Each structure stands twice: as structure tokens, then as C-alpha cells.
């Protein structure tokens, strides 16, 4: 069951003491994420508008899962931004996974700006019946 190491409720992740800063000045956002669980797997859906398939970077180190998405915004020459409700930047979120996840089977896909991660649970050892032999 993934827990979060760093939890922020704000959309904006300003420079926090524990967070690593980026080398380039760039806005970093925490994507809204849905997580749900079925018997065989955990599914994670993160809103990352403007992010293409090759803009996604997912790393798993020991138990720490980091999802990172780089959003592209095409330039609009000749136009001025007169009203803005959102900024364009990168998305990053960190989760701690439990040992129940089968790391080799993790699948990621991006569609319409949503990152979908499927984390299959590892097959637990089936209960074995132990036969007692007579001596």
C-alpha cells in the first residue's frame, strides 16, 4: 500500500527543506493522483496535462517510487498572456511502496495527459500442505 513520504496539499511545491531542488529554474507541481486497489494490483492515476509519453520519468529505488513528468507548452508568438490560472511546469510526486508490489511487473502509460501506473502485487506463496512422514 503506497504511503507518501512527502505530502503536500498545495498544488505548488515551493522549495521545501527536504525536497531536492532542480538545477534549472522551473515550476514544480504536485499532480493530483487517484489510487485504487484491486485483488491483483494497485492502480495509480496522476493528472499531468501537457505531458507526453517521452516526458515521463519513473524511477523505483528500493521502496521509493518517484513519478516525474515534464510538460511542454508550445510558444504562441505574437500573443500576450492576459489571464492565467495555471502555470506550466513539471510534475513530481514521491511514494513509498510496500513489499507487496512486484517491481518487475510495473507498467506505465500516458493518455490525454494522465499517467497511469499499474503496480501488480507479487504472488504470495501459496499455502502448502506439509505431509508428515512416519519414521
Amino acid at each position, binding site marked *: *500500500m503506497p504511503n507518501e513520504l512527502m505530502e503536500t496539499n498545495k498544488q505548488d511545491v515551493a522549495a521545501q527543506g527536504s525536497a531536492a531542488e532542480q538545477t534549472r529554474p522551473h515550476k514544480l507541481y504536485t499532480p*493530483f*493522483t487517484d489510487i485504487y486497489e484491486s485483488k491483483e494490483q494497485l492502480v495509480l492515476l496522476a493528472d499531468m496535462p501537457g*505531458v507526453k509519453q517521452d516526458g515521463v520519468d519513473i524511477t523505483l529505488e528500493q521502496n521509493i517510487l518517484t513519478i516525474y513528468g515534464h510538460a*511542454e507548452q508550445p510558444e504562441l508568438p505574437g500573443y*500576450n498572456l492576459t*489571464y492565467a*490560472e495555471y502555470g506550466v511546469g513539471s510534475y513530481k510526486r514521491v511514494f513509498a511502496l510496500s513489499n507487496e508490489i512486484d517491481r518487475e511487473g510495473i507498467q506505465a502509460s500516458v493518455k490525454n495527459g494522465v499517467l497511469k501506473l499499474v503496480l501488480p502485487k507479487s504472488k504470495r506463496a501459496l499455502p502448502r500442505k506439509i505431509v508428515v512422514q512416519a519414521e
Partner: protein
Amino acid sequence: MLIQRLADNDLFGSLRDMHRLQNSLNRLLSTSVPIEAPAEFPLINVWTSENGVIVRAEIPGIAPDDVDISLVNDTLTIRGFRNPEELQEGESRHRQERGFGQFSRSLQLPFGVEADHVQAKFSNGVLQITLPRSEAERPRRISVVSES
């Protein structure tokens, strides 16, 4: 409802007016169906030039067909429905942060636009609507003739 004619060159004034009219239009046009999504969804950015307006909205997780864009005079309305994930038997939700449900945003444009030449593109969850300014409203140069 108050409809104001916005001055051509007063982009900052039209920005304030856009805020005000957008809010009153949102209130006026909101349907009786309760909207489950957060009040401000989708988030929009507006780019303007003398020749037109470009509106960008972040709407991840929907198909281009699920968005309804309509233009009435100089009011642009973006509405649609974001489907929640269907859960199977035995599935449970751990975290639900993404909004879902019906959404609708209305925007008063700073000038009239050519309805026939409006284009909309949807890519990677970002909707971009390009609205060229209508010919009738383009600023006209008036030459001064000196009388001596």
C-alpha cells in the same frame, strides 16, 4: 444582465471586465445539476493579440469528443464531463484527488470573433481554442487630411 462593449486597446481594462463578466456568467449559466468537480475546473489561460484570442484549458483524462465548446456572441463556453474510473467488484479507493463529473466554464472575450474560423485542438490533455478577431471589429486606421 449587463453587456459591456469593451474598448479596443484597453487590454488591461478588458482583463478586469473579463474577470467580472466571467464570474457573473458562471453564476448565471450554471445548471441546476450539482457540479461535483471543484468550482474552478478546468483551469484556463488566455492569450490575446490584436488579431485574436487563444484560450488554453487543462483538461486531462477526457477524450476530445467529450468536450462541448460553444460560442454565443462573444461568450465562449467550455463544458464537458469527466468520467470517474469504474471500479470492479472488490476494488477499493485509497486516494481520490482528481475531480470528476460535469464541468462548465464561460468566458467573455475581449472582442467579437469570427465564429466560422474558430479552431480547437486537443493534445495531451490541453485544449487550445483559437479565435480570430472578427473583421468588423478590427481597428481601423483613420488618416488625417490636413486642411490649409
